[in-house]
């Protein structure tokens, strides 16, 4: 399933306008502890978090994550959006909780 298909299915907002969303999502994680994401992340993941500062982009980029999904209506910092856009990492936002988003992704076959 691609990032765009997930955006459409869950009605997510693409915060990084114009960034390519055709990439395949191959797994996921829900975590706000960047240290743990660094230690356990895998390429192609959709990362669900409420952390919105610029360091999330570095972590996502180093791991080659497919996208970052900011949950629970948290507002994404402007410099985070700018940095993610320049790195080509889609940042998606939703009012749903991380629990709800993860459950839906899992149900859609992203495991």
């Amino acid at each position, binding site marked *: 399933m691609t990032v765009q298909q997930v955006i459409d299915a869950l009605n997510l907002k693409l915060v990084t306008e114009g960034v390519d969303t055709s990439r395949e999502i191959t797994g996921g994680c829900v975590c706000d502890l960047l240290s743990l994401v*660094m230690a356990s992340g895998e390429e192609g993941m959709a990362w669900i978090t409420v952390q919105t500062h610029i360091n999330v982009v570095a972590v996502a980029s180093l791991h080659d994550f497919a996208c970052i999904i900011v949950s629970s209506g948290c507002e994404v910092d402007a410099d985070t959006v700018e940095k993610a856009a320049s790195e080509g990492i889609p940042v998606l936002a939703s009012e749903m909780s991380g629990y709800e988003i993860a459950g839906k992704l899992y149900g859609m076959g992203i495991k």
Partner: protein
Amino acid sequence: MADYTNATFEEVREVGKGDFATAGQGSAAFKNTLKKLGVGSAVVRRVAIASYEAEINLAIHSDGGKLTLSVYPDKIRLVSEDIGPGIADLDLVMQEGYSTATEEVRMLGFGAGMGMPNMKRCSDEFDLKSAVGKGTTITMDFKLG
């Protein structure tokens, strides 16, 4: 660890005290460099993760330092050196979950006491030397081929 000379490639990145916003730029640059040199993606990934952990540690804990990436025909060496303050108990710092990070740093999602163990896990050889009042040097080797 053995001393190595005559690196085929070397790149240095400075990290200042409290440089959170820019942490990750050095690792990203190293990652691009290694990719361009044709290093396998699994090794690139491990170097990038270790280097990011080192960068974050320098930003959080050190009074400033630098990261040096050296590429040899059979391995990659990553060295993190800082100018202080040094680590008092080297066993404790390698213990998962131990951290001296401030509440502010923890709010950002760091300081969980996972950085050092993660660097060790990512590298094939890991060496930590430190002297209080002087500084800390971490040397990590990654085998090629």
